[in-house]
């Protein structure tokens, strides 16, 4: 069991004065799966009231408005998250398990195309490469697909934007975790495997540079429930993942989305800091 203190800071500097900034942020870690959350807190500057609600996917959403003129906006989210150890390795899951009609009624939204996960001809062609290897069962296929995406796409920060499509990724063969996750979701849904997008943070204790936001997938395996796959880091070290938002794709879980009136955004910096939380007994 790992107990981590996480903080996520978004700092936006505008080229001039802005006002009537309304934002929806998804930065509070989830309390399901193997996670427990203590002391979640959202702090906004300029100071304003923050309203919380839970969205259709069970994500905690904070809503706020800064109506008065301002030049900078700072959003800081902090929480202490306890992550239980990873479950035992996956046993094989027969393909038949996905043919059950009940699956559509349980998790149907994760079988369909979604705004950012479309089954385009380019996806079909890539899927054919993945399928060429053959697979005895679904778990084997998933591990193979996870590796294939990882090996086919060069991880290159800055090569895509948050609005890039899977087709653009397959054209350039370069991208980041969000793009690779969308591609993996498309592969799964095409095979009739329910799969959803997870946005969150990755704890990398050995890392010297700042931590980063991350995106990966959860796949619905009959008999197992939702299980993690990460095409950016195949066969992930699961107790280092902090789950913040889940949805059909990125469009359901952007960390910050909003609207304001005024000057352009000059600079936006996002910092994620994760470290061991102090022992609760010593507090």
């Amino acid at each position, binding site marked *: 069991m790992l107990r981590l203190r996480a903080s996520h800071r978004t700092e936006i500097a505008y080229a001039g004065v802005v006002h009537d900034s*309304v934002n929806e942020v998804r930065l509070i870690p989830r309390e399901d799966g193997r996670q427990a959350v203590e002391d979640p807190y959202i702090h906004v500057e300029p100071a304003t009231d923050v*309203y919380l609600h839970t969205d259709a996917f069970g994500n905690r959403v904070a809503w706020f*408005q800064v*109506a008065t003129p301002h030049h900078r906006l700072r959003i800081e989210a902090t929480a202490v998250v306890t992550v239980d150890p990873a479950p035992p390795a996956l046993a094989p899951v027969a393909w038949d398990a996905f043919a059950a009609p009940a699956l559509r*009624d349980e998790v*149907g939204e994760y079988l369909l195309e979604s705004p950012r996960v479309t089954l385009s001809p380019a996806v079909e062609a890539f899927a054919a490469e993945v399928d060429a290897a053959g697979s005895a069962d679904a778990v084997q296929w998933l591990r193979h697909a996870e590796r294939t995406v990882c090996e086919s796409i060069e991880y290159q920060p800055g090569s895509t934007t948050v609005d890039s499509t899977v087709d653009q990724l397959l054209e350039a063969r370069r991208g980041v975790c969000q793009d690779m996750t969308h591609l993996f979701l498309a592969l799964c849904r095409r095979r009739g495997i329910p799969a959803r997008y997870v946005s969150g943070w990755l704890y990398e204790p050995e890392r010297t540079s700042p931590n980063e936001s991350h995106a990966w997938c959860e796949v619905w395996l009959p008999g197992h429930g939702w299980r993690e796959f990460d095409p950016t880091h195949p066969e992930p070290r699961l107790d280092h993942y902090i789950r913040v938002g889940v949805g059909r794709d990125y469009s*359901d879980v952007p960390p910050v989305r909003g*609207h304001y009136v005024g000057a352009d955004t000059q600079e936006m910096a996002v910092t994620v800091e994760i470290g061991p939380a102090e022992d609760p007994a010593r507090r």
Partner: protein
Amino acid sequence: MNATLFSDYRLAGYYDEMFDDDAEPRDAYRGLFSGVASLGSDVFTRKTDLAGACYLNEGITFSHHGREHPFPFDLLPRLIRADDWAWLSAALRQRVTALDRFCSDVYGAQRCIADGVVPRWMVVSCKGYLREMVGLRPPKDRWVHLAGIDLIRDEDGVWRVLEDNLRTPSGLSYVVQNRTFMRRVFPEAFAGYAVRRVDGAPIQLRRALMQSAPDGVADPRLVVLTPGPMNAAYYEHSFLAQQMGVPLAEGRDLVVRNQRVYLKTTAGYDPVDVIYRRIDDAFLDPVCLRQDSLLGVPGLMGVYRAGNVALCTAPGTGVADDKAMYAFVPDIIRYYMGEEPLLQQVPTYLMERPDDREYVLDNLRSLVVKAVDGAGGYGILIGPHSTAEERAEFAQRIDDNPRGYIAQNTISLSRAPVFLGGRFAARHIDLRPFITYGARPEVVPGGLTRVALKEGSLVVNSSQGGGSKDTWVLER
């Protein structure tokens, strides 16, 4: 039926609204028939031209392929007997109440899914299912504030629901204006008839909207939210705002502050409690919904979630008027109302069900196929009037996206006389009555009778060359 204006009129085996099977005028129509029959073709033509001029002068047009056309209006009214109307009203109230309860349940406890009335899959795969509404409870838990239920009569004169329109149905302004122009150009037609008035419809809508205001608001302030003059229904938006006596606003006229909505006026910010919105769900708020929307109000959904404004109709009601969900409506009525549905439907095949699909693909020639999220008569295949090429195209579309299509038996819509080319000819018609829903569902005593002007056509939509008739609900 010997008058010259009707000399070429043929019943041809359809249910006719005006004439019985022996070609005699039905009782209610007798006075009207003798009055009209005494007129010459030239008089009727002149009156028809005058009515057309009224529409043009008033600016009542609709957009078809990017051009504005006056709305074709037929001067022979469609009559509905008082006893028929009493029954229809009860049936419509039952249906709209059930659909409103269904919306509340789908975005709330989802009892209907747990109890197996509607499969969860049908809900989550529905284009009109708005995830942003999950867990959100509108003021008074009212979802459907204005419904337009499209009704047809079959070969036997039996009323059937063709489709439900819950997402900002249009046409209420035509109901009112058809009557205004009818009285102006053909006042003598009303002689001997006691017709229920429809000019109170906007006030009836206003009452329903006011009753749906957030709790504790003593004197609710209402605005009509329009996408603007480029919208095909802008005339209606401005007409209803003017008739209800409330401001007509565009998104940029409204602003969110301190979790309230305000109307910007020359005298400062005026709080707004109820918004009759004629903007599609996706465009209401760029923060929560479509980010590229320039029509909405940033932050509006945050205010709505806080319970400080009513959006009418509530976002997300598209889940209940989806054409595939239609197949479940009789069960939805039984479930929420604990009674049998009063109105018949049109037998419907879900392309999702393999047996249904196979039957439909084998019988495309005799069926009607519709896209589940289509509107305005687009995305429809009328089997009996289709070419082999069109049928092949629809078969392919059904195969590609079974959830996206339904098929229905072709119903021979009832017909009524329409003045065309100097005399009366029979054309198919339907009826869109309007139901307002504030504290209670109330049916506007009239409706929009739509006419398929093309001979033999079953498509009455104005975007497909349809016209309309004044609809008279008789007092007795």
